[in-house]
């Protein structure tokens, strides 16, 4: 097939394929697979969603009608737009499309356009658009912001959205669909094709893809044979807590030896770095193993990708950066380190290992700690049952809407009615009320403040003829510079010190701030020594001898999905656990003996003294974010009740709270109304809210990431957004951006929805078990990092303590005393 070369074409050429294509290039003929046939049939449909497992060759299938149409009716101008979430994918698809086009001598021009494309090339593309343009949602949004957008897109026939399942989970998808709504107005005959990996709810993706209320055809390709998936057996039992999976290094190496190419997936970049480092130390045969994640420099990543395509690498330690896109040659094994947290993502990752479409994918799960053994077993069962999970996304977020209004204004004067009508053709915004739209428009125009301060300086002004336009045409440049919805944490480039040394990658600014000269950390699998910060670049030198400080890349911390959590609870109810290794089964038996195992529909709480404190463990199984929120709310309630909580720590399945007093009656603490009331007050001053506000305010255009090409340093950005937040809370609590922040936080980091779900599931059936000492199931919680001290007076005490220590040290006791 086209993208792999090595993959044998296993389906005969399709009968509807124009002979011109099949005769011209053997590769194109090979691409006529089972997945492409429905693409042909649906070629005329206004919207078509093709669902096929990873590696099914669906991308080319999406292009076949374009190649045929352009071959039959040669023409100039843009015919097909291809949008993918990855820049690399756009470039890769271009290379791969060019081969058959050149082989068959087709008169078709293909170009990509991403943030990496040079500006001269971009100008040329605007003047003379290619037949097929490959791009990303951000670059497309930027294109639609130009005054000559109608000319650029004139004649556009088809748009192909690749990896739409990934886009559907984020605001990037919302932005893309708003851009398509715009294109559809410019080109009414535009046909949309979505390409998706296996998902739990194809209808939801279809609604997103199609122009509302048009229908969307859904075609599901044969999912292929059952995956061959199991837990990796290791000599050593996994540790009680932590996510490193160092115990599994020998067993993983053995698997690498036995397979051609192994992908070793991790949930976070930091874990990938540490694992890679340890794997390398244990790699006595010097098997070629690479590392790939989003914090590495692009050049480094491309090198690894190229080596992989050539088949030079035996294994790649990676993160979600390899979840999407390019089919990487001969991968015959996928190893997932750490519990997958989410069955759908696991299935998509496993699909990376079907080197032949009709052969089963092979995957191994490696639990990083004892609890994850249980979670991995539950995930295995879910994969076998093809029980995919997914969080329902609500209606389209309004911060993206605000950005879209500003983008529309850049393109030229617009009519509010028409823009509103256009936006509601995007599925996610179909339910948008006119009032909500007007709020967003007012925000863009005047700031939307209760104090109408900007009458003179409106960003958008309504002209006498009723159209809206930018007051200052120069502001278009600033708006364009800030297009996009990706909230990368603020990072700094890392380079070796000396003459413009090679870039190694990026680290978070917060992590860089903790470093002092001489500290060491891991990046790209190497230990480097921090030398200093120069012009916002972290300068490092090589250092092979020290033990590294751990790089705390932000790396997404996924919460275990609702479906998976419920499976774990059901699994606990079994008499015995033949599917679990003995050490883990014994652990659960002991828990049952000493205390209880958590049950579905009930809430287990343990209370016991330990370490000189009273401990309370709530087994809520609501996922990391919700459990974190529950910890904050419960400790707040406890403080109100005079129960002196001192701190808490949360995991996906439980929250551990320590304090001075034992809890006798937990019932009142879990009163949903009281928790929700607490939430309101607590939210206002909360760091999670400030972070959420910062993201939404940036998307909506209140905070500018880029000013005149100069990116603000994260430190300044953090500071000003916190101040803006505090000011709004104080003087304008009903402001649109605060409404958006609350909405976002409730379904994002705060995840109160799952606490609500938990309380409703439990309906007051709370079992408090009083124990003399800690229980087996709770023990790992005491090793969990990320303990949160209760704020308030505690912080003031700590600060005084620190000041005292500093003064004593400096012999300055008399000052300020």
């Amino acid at each position, binding site marked *: 097939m086209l993208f792999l070369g090595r993959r044998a074409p296993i389906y005969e050429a399709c009968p509807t394929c124009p002979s011109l294509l099949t005769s011209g290039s053997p590769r194109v003929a090979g691409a006529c697979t089972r997945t492409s046939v429905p693409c042909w049939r649906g070629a005329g449909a206004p919207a078509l969603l093709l669902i096929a497992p990873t590696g099914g060759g669906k991308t080319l299938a999406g292009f076949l009608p374009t190649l045929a149409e352009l071959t039959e009716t040669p023409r100039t101008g843009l015919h097909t737009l291809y949008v993918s979430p990855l820049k690399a994918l756009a470039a890769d698809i271009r290379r791969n499309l060019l081969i058959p086009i050149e082989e068959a001598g087709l008169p078709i021009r293909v170009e990509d356009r991403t943030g990496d494309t040079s500006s001269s090339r971009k100008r040329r593309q605007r003047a003379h658009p290619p037949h097929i343009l490959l791009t990303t949602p951000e670059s497309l949004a930027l294109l639609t912001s130009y005054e000559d957008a109608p000319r650029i897109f004139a004649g556009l026939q088809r748009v192909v959205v690749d990896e739409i399942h990934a886009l559907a989970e984020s605001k990037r998808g919302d932005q893309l669909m708003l851009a398509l709504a715009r294109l559809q107005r410019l080109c009414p005959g535009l046909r949309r094709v979505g390409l998706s990996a296996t998902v739990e709810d194809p209808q939801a993706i279809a609604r997103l893809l199609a122009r509302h209320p048009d229908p969307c055809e859904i075609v599901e390709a044969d999912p292929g044979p059952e995956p061959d998936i199991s837990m990796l057996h290791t000599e050593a039992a996994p540790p009680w807590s932590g996510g490193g999976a160092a115990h599994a290094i020998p067993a993983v190496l053995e698997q690498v030896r036995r397979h051609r190419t192994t992908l070793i997936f991790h949930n976070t970049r930091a874990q990938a770095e540490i694992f890679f480092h340890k794997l390398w130390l244990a790699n006595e045969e010097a098997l070629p193993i690479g590392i790939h994640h989003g914090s590495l420099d692009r050049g480094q990543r491309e090198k690894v990708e190229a080596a992989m395509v050539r088949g030079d690498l035996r294994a790649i330690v990676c993160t979600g950066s390899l979840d999407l896109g390019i089919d990487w040659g001969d991968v015959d094994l996928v190893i997932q380190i750490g519990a997958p947290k989410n069955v759908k993502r696991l299935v998509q990752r496993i699909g990376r290992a079907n080197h032949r479409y009709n052969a089963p994918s092979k995957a191994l799960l490696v639990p990083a700690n004892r609890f994850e053994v249980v979670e991995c077993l539950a995930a295995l069962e879910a994969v076998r049952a093809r029980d995919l999970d997914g969080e329902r996304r609500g209606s389209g977020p309004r911060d993206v809407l605000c950005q879209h209004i500003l983008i529309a204004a850049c393109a030229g004067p617009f009519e509010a009615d028409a823009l509103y009508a256009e936006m509601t053709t995007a599925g996610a915004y179909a339910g948008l009320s006119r009032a909500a739209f007007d709020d967003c428009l007012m925000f863009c125009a005047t*700031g939307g403040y209760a104090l109408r*301060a900007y009458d003179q300086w409106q960003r958008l002004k309504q002209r006498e003829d009723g159209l809206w336009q930018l007051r200052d045409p120069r*502001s278009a440049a600033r708006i364009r510079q800030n297009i996009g919805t990706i909230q990368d944490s603020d990072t700094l480039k890392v380079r070796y010190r000396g003459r413009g040394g090679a870039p190694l990658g990026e680290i978070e600014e917060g992590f860089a701030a903790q470093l002092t000269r001489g500290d060491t950390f891991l990046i790209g699998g190497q230990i480097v020594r921090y030398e200093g910060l120069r012009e916002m670049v972290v300068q490092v030198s090589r250092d092979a001898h020290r033990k590294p400080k751990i790089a705390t890349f932000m790396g997404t911390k996924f919460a275990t999905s609702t479906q998976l959590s419920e499976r774990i609870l059901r699994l606990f109810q079994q008499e015995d656990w033949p599917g679990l290794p003995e050490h883990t089964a014994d652990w659960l038996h002991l828990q049952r003996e000493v205390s209880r195992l958590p049950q579905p529909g009930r809430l287990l709480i343990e209370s016991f003294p330990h370490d000189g404190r009273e401990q309370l463990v709530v087994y809520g199984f609501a996922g990391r974010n919700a459990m974190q929120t529950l910890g904050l709310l419960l400790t707040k309630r406890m403080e109100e009740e005079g129960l002196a909580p001192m701190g808490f720590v949360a995991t996906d399945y439980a929250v551990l709270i320590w304090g001075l007093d034992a809890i006798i009656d937990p019932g009142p603490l879990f009163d949903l109304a009281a928790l929700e009331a607490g939430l309101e007050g607590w939210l206002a001053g909360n760091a999670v809210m400030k972070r959420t506000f910062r993201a939404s305010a940036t998307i909506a255009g209140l905070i500018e990431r880029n000013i005149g090409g100069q990116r603000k340093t994260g430190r300044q950005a953090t500071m000003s957004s916190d101040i803006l937040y505090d000011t709004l809370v104080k003087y304008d609590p009903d402001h649109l951006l605060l409404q958006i922040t609350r909405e976002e936080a409730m379904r994002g980091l705060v995840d109160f929805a799952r606490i609500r779900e938990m309380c409703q599931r439990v309906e007051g059936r709370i079992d408090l078990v009083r124990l003399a000492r800690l229980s087996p199931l709770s023990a790992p919680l005491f090793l969990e990092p990320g303990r949160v001290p209760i704020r308030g007076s505690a912080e003031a005490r700590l600060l005084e303590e620190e*000041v005292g220590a500093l*003064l004593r040290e400096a012999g300055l006791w008399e000052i300020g005393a």
Partner: protein
Amino acid sequence: MTRLGIDFCGATLEALGSGALFWPAERLLVVSDLHLGKSARLAAQGGALLPPYEGRETLLRLERDLEATGARRVVCLGDSFDAAGIDLLLPEEDRLWIARLQAGRDWMWIEGNHDPGPVSLGGTHLAELDLGGLVLRHIAKPGARGEVSGHYHPKARLVLRGGRVISRACFLVDEARLLMPAYGAYTGGLRTDSPALAGLMEAGARAILTGAVPLAIPMPR
């Protein structure tokens, strides 16, 4: 509000947690870098429309400090306005508020790099002020002694036990000079370990953190 006494070049001063400096002997309150009108300036340039409340926030704080200290004289130590002429664009409410605060007080605007010219509001406009052995100016001069200045917006960063990091606007003081924190609501800051500040202050300099209670520590470098 708690205050922290500072003996500085023969004068007894008090640092307020809000970032103001009080000189009891002169009944003088000094505030620096108010940056009033910042949101209006950004809006006029076609940028984002920030919440237009920083004037209220800053003036509210100033009013409280004036009441608490009973100051009869006020020195705004430069960059009181975010741009020359922006005073004309302040909301009428804020202009009236300033006039109210000025009533019965001797009010001096020291010029800063953002607001070099005279302002439309009441008060005296000065390049700098010599008073009781001290000199008050916007930007510190090399080799000066007994100098109180602003401009740099110093802030200190402190890592507490357990890794919690706090960052607060601060005064910096050594034997020769005193640097004021920025008083305005929408002001960023320059870390005390930056070369500009580290080079300016002597070895034994202290930082006085703003906050509910002003706290003195050795200047973090």
